[in-house]
């Protein structure tokens, strides 16, 4: 309940800025309502992207301006708009309320809470559509964003401000990589670098799946620094179309405050489908695979807003992990090729690897990070080159060895080492590792300490080695924590620890 003094104060404030100018309004009349896309006459002063209000209070956005009519997408869930209803322009472009209160909340594309908790307090309105920062405001990617996944942090490192695509067929663990990355940001808090605020945008997903993700994040204490934006498969196409822009607008609010943000778009294939549906109802000319001509711009203008700002502009960043679902591993389809060309690299998941038990099923040869190398720590760099080379050699030799010809000793050794390297890169879901432990795993395998261990025992060897180091060599972990390249002394300590551990390790028969 508002107190009398407060109410009077508010009225006085309004009176101080009271305008006696004539208020002008531009109105229109609904001519047609097709699947939540309205065609209206009038509205001669309306502009593209302007928010409009219908007679029943529903909101809409103008998407097409024709000679005699305008096309509007309805944003409200209920659609009671009839032919002949009036529409008013608002003079505003679509914006979302952004504030710190959003952390730990689940909202829809318009900022309305979905978690049953109280309404989010009004703060700053951030426009959904905004031109990305220019070159002067940016700086190159230079700070790592650790995913906690060995294969990614070592071979396709991600930097803050980068756009790294996660691509693959259905059910190969694309979302799992994104969720693990969000969970790993908890461990990064309070370290040398600042913590990362995470935004998970679910587009066209099943409600049950999003609920599971929220529950998992809650269990892992990762929801406190995460915002969920949900435009499920049952929501309107307008909501699905706007969801990634809403997420980016909120990310920009935090970035303006100098924060680092990680945003996951799960997934942009369904976003493209939603936009295709809108475009076809709007009768825009259909192009390849029935997508409209501006489908590339739809995603490029979204992903271009992921940026690393320079110190003069606050030094904040938005790192994005767009997800794309392919059909039958076909990366040459229209939407996958578009996004591959927009992003700064891709993590490619392969069904063959997944079926062979390699999880995460990351294809080392096809995955790439174009800018992340600059953000990798010297510690990780010291082992990643050798790792990549060994995996590449193993893949070549493995293909050759299939012919069954006799192999020399060196080749056999290389194949055996490769098998163990593949094993060490396996990692269970929801178990992101800190960089020193990732380093230790890669270091022991690339330095031959697992060569005499059975392939099936490598993962257990790794796990027990981690425990051994945590309990017996905490000083070594402390040194590695700095991220510096290991010096002679550290290398000696590493060798000593590995030899000592091997004596205690009992392989199961």
């Amino acid at each position, binding site marked *: 309940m*508002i107190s009398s003094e407060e*109410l009077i104060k*508010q*009225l006085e404030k*309004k009176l101080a800025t009271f305008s006696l100018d*004539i*208020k*002008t*309004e*531009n*109105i*229109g009349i609904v001519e047609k309502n097709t699947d939540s896309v309205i065609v209206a*006459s*009038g*509205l*001669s*002063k309306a502009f593209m992207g302007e928010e409009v209000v219908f007679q029943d209070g529903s909101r809409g956005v103008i998407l097409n301006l024709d000679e*005699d009519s305008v096309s509007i997408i309805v944003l409200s869930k209920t659609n009671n708009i009839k032919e002949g209803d009036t529409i008013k322009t608002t003079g505003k472009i679509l914006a979302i309320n952004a504030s710190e209160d959003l952390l730990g909340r689940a909202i829809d594309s318009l900022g309305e809470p979905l978690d049953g908790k109280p*309404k989010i307090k*009004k703060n700053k309105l951030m426009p959904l559509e905004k031109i990305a920062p220019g070159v002067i405001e940016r700086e190159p990617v230079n700070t790592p964003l650790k995913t906690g996944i060995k294969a990614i942090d070592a071979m396709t490192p991600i930097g803050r401000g980068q756009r790294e695509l996660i691509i693959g067929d259905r059910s190969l663990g694309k979302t799992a990589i994104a969720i693990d990355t969000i969970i790993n940001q908890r461990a990064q808090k309070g370290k040398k670098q600042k913590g990362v605020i995470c935004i998970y945008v679910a587009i066209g997903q099943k409600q049950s799946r999003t609920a599971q993700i929220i529950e998992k994040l809650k269990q892992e204490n990762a929801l406190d620094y995460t915002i969920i934006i949900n435009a499920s498969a049952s929501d309107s196409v307008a909501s699905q179309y706007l969801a990634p822009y809403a997420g980016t607008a909120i990310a920009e609010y935090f970035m303006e405050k100098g924060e680092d943000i990680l945003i996951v778009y799960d997934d942009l294939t369904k976003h493209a489908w939603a936009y295709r549906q809108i475009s076809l109802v709007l009768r825009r000319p259909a192009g390849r695979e029935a997508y409209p001509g501006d489908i590339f711009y739809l995603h490029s203008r979204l992903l271009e807003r992921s940026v690393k700002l320079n110190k003069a502009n606050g030094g904040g960043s938005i790192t994005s992990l767009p997800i794309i679902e392919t059909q039958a591993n076909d990366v040459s389809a229209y939407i996958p090729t578009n996004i591959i060309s927009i992003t700064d690299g891709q993590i490619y998941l392969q069904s063959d690897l997944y079926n062979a038990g390699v999880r995460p099923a990351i294809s080392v040869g096809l995955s790439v990070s174009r800018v992340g190398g600059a953000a990798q720590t010297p510690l990780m760099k010291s082992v990643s080159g050798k790792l990549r080379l060994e995996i590449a050699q193993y893949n070549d030799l493995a293909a050759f060895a299939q012919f069954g010809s006799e192999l020399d000793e060196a080749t056999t050794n290389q194949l055996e080492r490769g098998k163990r390297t593949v094993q060490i890169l396996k990692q269970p879901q929801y178990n992101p590792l800190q960089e020193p432990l990732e380093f230790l795993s890669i270091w022991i395998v690339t330095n031959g300490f697992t060569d005499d261990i059975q392939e099936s025992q490598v993962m257990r060897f790794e796990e027990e080695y981690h425990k051994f180091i945590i309990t017996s060599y905490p000083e070594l972990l402390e040194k590695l924590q700095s991220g510096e390249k290991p010096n002679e002394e550290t290398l000696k300590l590493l060798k000593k620890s590995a030899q000592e551990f091997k004596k205690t390790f009992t392989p199961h028969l």
Partner: protein
Amino acid sequence: MTIDQIKTLAKGSFKGENLDPKMVLKITKLLTRNDLKLYVKALKSEERKRRVTVFLPNIKLSDKQVLQKKIAKLFPNKKIEFSIDPSLLVGLKIVDDDMIYEYNLKNTLESLSNYLESQYD
């Protein structure tokens, strides 16, 4: 028939401020059902463009004539119509095609109420 041609026909169906019934009859005889539909739509739109409606809470006959002259100066070549809307309380509202000009107490109070609502949402 193209839409542009139908629009030209609709424009030509007016004599001054009003529709010319002879011309309209002549045109309708020549049109197909679909074209007729578009023609009626174009006539409605043309009629809206040529008319200005002034809403007032109440009005005396002497005031009406003064107001009509003033509004006719603001909207030349348009038909001025007056309508009574007591809910405006004080002031007036002018509707010119798809534009609305509001200068009345009802609107002022509404904007004040919206402002307060937005502050305590």
